């Protein structure tokens, strides 16, 4: 399957079960035709509401999803589920058992469930999952649920491709609540305490409310809902909350394949086949060019950058390189380059890279380490790369080198991503 015939595309768009399944397989395996498919369906994306559901094992996610399926079906929807199960790190094998735990609704004709193992995907799991979601979006499903287990980096990254992210907690976590706070809470649009019939559930709801209050105020409040999937309590309210979130945040606005690829692009290099890389490179190039133009417009507005003599060397989506030649005005009382200048250089690269996606990103945390002093006359280069980017937070690493390639300083910064554009919209 290299080119996509009109009939094949029509079959996918009609939601033909067999065609959709075969297309997903091609995407999963990175078959030669996968890129052609991605290209063919690209114009037909953006209709599905993509919901990411994650949480610790034991939270009853599968039972909850089964209950959600029932609710969505009752509202006349067609729903697809992508269930990610962990694979053995040693053998690569997996028992994909989640769909069976989704009980009776899995057999309904308006439900489509695909199980995906967590390993062995060229380009990374996020990328594969994003492409699978795209296929299901193009196939006309109203809602696509992506279910992952746990809070590992790839699981968190996957939820980045959702419009609405739900994190499910079992009641009575105690110390585990603290562990969860570290990763998952940051990404949740909706928090759910399942097994709500248990005594500890109310206390857990209170704990989560408390933790949310301690965090920085977010643009939209994060609701904490209690459900009992086995009894069917709270399910309608959860669906309402998800739909409300989609209405406010927009559906189809998910980061989609491109950003997921950027996350794992570095890892994918060296693993993928040439044709895939070429297609990837082309898409990246277009996106990059847009981002580069935007960055140049931004830096042109920055007076401090101009004052220091910082130049933008290279820029693109999620990355930026700036440089500066150390002059007399940059020296400290010891006669070496002032640390604040180095910091400013790193911070500039950081700011450009984090604002390259079009939304205002405000720095909230930054650290710098100085390894080697810089001297007058050195040309310092700061290169910022995107380490992690979720809906609300981005983390960037900046390496500063001097002309001979020596690493003189390392910088890490975190931004809070707002929902406001950093440029006026298209006129």
């Amino acid at each position: 399957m290299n080119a996509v015939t009109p009939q094949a595309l029509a079959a996918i768009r009609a939601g033909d079960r067999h065609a959709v399944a075969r297309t997903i397989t091609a995407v999963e395996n990175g078959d030669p035709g996968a890129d052609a498919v991605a290209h063919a369906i690209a114009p037909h994306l953006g209709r599905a509401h993509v919901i990411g559901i994650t949480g610790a094992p034991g939270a009853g996610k599968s039972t909850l999803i089964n209950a959600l399926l029932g609710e969505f079906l009752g509202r006349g929807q067609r729903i697809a589920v992508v269930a990610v199960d962990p694979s053995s790190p040693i053998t690569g094998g997996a028992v994909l058992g989640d769909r069976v735990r989704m009980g009776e609704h899995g057999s309904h004709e308006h439900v489509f469930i695909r199980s995906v193992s967590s390993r062995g995907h060229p380009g990374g799991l996020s990328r594969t999952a994003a492409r699978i979601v795209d296929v299901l979006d193009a196939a006309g499903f109203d809602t696509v649920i992506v279910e992952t287990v746990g809070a590992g980096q790839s699981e968190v990254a996957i939820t980045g491709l959702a419009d609405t992210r739900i994190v499910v907690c079992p009641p009575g976590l105690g110390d585990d609540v603290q562990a969860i706070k570290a990763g998952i809470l940051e990404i949740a649009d909706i928090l759910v305490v399942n097994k709500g019939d248990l005594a500890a559930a109310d206390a857990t709801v209170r704990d989560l409310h408390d933790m949310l209050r301690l965090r920085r105020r977010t643009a939209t409040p994060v609701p904490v809902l209690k459900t009992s999937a086995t009894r069917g309590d709270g399910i309608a309210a959860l669906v309402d909350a998800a739909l409300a979130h989609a209405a406010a945040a927009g559906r189809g606005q998910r980061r989609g394949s491109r950003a997921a690829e950027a996350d794992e692009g570095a890892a994918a290099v060296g693993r993928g086949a040439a044709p895939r890389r070429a297609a990837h490179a082309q898409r990246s190039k277009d996106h990059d060019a847009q981002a580069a133009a935007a960055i140049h417009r931004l830096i042109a507005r920055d007076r401090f950058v101009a004052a220091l003599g910082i130049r933008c060397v290279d820029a693109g989506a999620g990355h930026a390189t700036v440089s500066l030649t150390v002059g007399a005005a940059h020296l400290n009382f010891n006669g070496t380059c002032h640390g604040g200048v180095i910091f400013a250089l790193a911070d500039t690269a950081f700011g450009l890279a984090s604002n390259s996606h079009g939304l205002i990103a405000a720095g909230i945390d930054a650290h710098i380490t100085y390894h080697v002093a810089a001297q007058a006359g050195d040309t310092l280069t700061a290169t910022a790369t995107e380490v992690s980017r979720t809906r609300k937070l981005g983390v960037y690493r900046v390496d500063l080198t001097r002309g001979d390639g020596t690493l003189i300083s390392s910088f890490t910064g975190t931004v809070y991503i707002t929902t406001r554009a950093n440029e006026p919209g298209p006129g």
Partner: protein
Amino acid sequence: MNKPFEPTVQDAAGEDRWHRDYAAGIGVDRAVTNRSGVAIKPLYTPRDWSGEDFGDDVGYPGQPPYTRGIYATMHRGRTWTQRQLIGLSTPADYNARLLGIISQGATAVSLIPCNSVFRGYDMDEVDAELLGTCGVVVNTVDHMDACLSGVDIGRTSCAMNDPSPFTLHAFLLATAKRRGVAWDRIRGTSNQSDYLSHYVANHMFFRLALPAARRVLQDHIQFCNRHVPQWNPMSVVGQHMQQAGATPAEAMAFTLASALQVADDCVARGMAPDEFLPRFTFFFDVSLSFFEEIARFRAGRRIWVRLTRERYGAKDPRSWRFKFHAQTSGVDLTRAQPHNNIARVTVQAMAGILGGLQSLHTDAYDEALSCPTEFGARIAVATQNILREEAHLTDVIDPLGGSYYVETLTNEMEAAILRSMQLVANAGGMYEAVAAGIVQRQIGDSARRFQETIESGAQTVVGVNAYRTEEDRSARPSLPKPDPQRMQEHLGAFAAHKAARSSEAVARAQDALARAANDAKANVYAAVVVAAEAGCTHGEICGTLRREMGFGHVQALV
């Protein structure tokens, strides 16, 4: 425990000499453990067990600690019951087979229903090819009556293999009423009534949700206590778990834990321990691990009397007695060279008999393949007759008692059993442990470990991974499938019955059943009996209860 054994000077010399001779002659010795993981030595001596705690640990049959047997006379006074579990096709076919084996010496009835009945369906709700292949298709009182035609149910013990909601028992009671036999004369067991074992081992009965099955069992126990006093409503099952891969020690542990769970539930219902404990019976598989099985049954008896007295304060000795039925384990049988299974069944039967069982089912040699043929069933019954009357296994009570090996192994099996019971206790009891999947995972691990020993060849299975031959296919028995003509007739008669009966009476009984299910204070089983008498079918009764109380959903745990 035991006082250290002090050998005489000559004995010590003999002991040393044996150690030297053994070491010199054995070459490379191998470490041996039994299926429960207990290390087994080449020789046992008074050093391992010297009889010092004879009174506490061994004692005499018919009194605590019951290690040697629950009755004073055991098989010498009354031989074990020969209870062959059978089920086949239509009621008429079953009846013919039943009367046949009774004439050959079987002394009790056991009825295995068709898989469709196991699942709670009527015969017209499933694929016709699947009907009656492993059990008899009983959906109504008429069918039960036909199954037991010519059997004096006021005098013959009947085991119905049927847990919640116990429709087969209800059909039996209705049959008794028809025949003018008072319910207080009905003797037998609700075999395999242990809902927990079905849930754990994904056994075939899985009609009601776990909490529903729990409640209906309690209702059934209360009903029988009051109305069918000679009936044993509680059969706690170790067989399913052992067939699913539990080691003999685990199977005993989880079974005892299930018994404790049901007993706790009875106490919570306000029943006095001596009211229900005498009605508890146990059902175990007996594997080929000969001494291990004997030891674990002896240990089981010892543990049970301690639990009933200490945990429940039972005063009636009938509450303390660990009564059990054993079936030779089909898991040990092979498809290859099937006649070898006769030898296997013989060893298993001996282990059960010497282990002190109360009743025994011996598998036919072809039972691993399918429902046994008449030829195979006859040999199975003859095996028991030979062991009893030619090998005279009934002459001596607990003949292996006092063996250094068997007494040591009994102690070690007891320790292993108690360890597994602690696991369950830590989880909050058997119900919680099962709901959380803890027991299932444990059993799955044991199953995998055992499979590895076979895959690697460490455990020989004759004809399978060793001693293989070119098989003569004609020697392999074929599957006796029910006569399709007779099954069609059975289906036709069933349809006619449904058309002819009073739909009003049925509707009223179903309503009453549904109401009982939703009334926490009602006795659901009593409503099941009424429904059976009104002509409701098995599928209708199960269907109503499923609708009101929930279907059993299977955990998919690999």
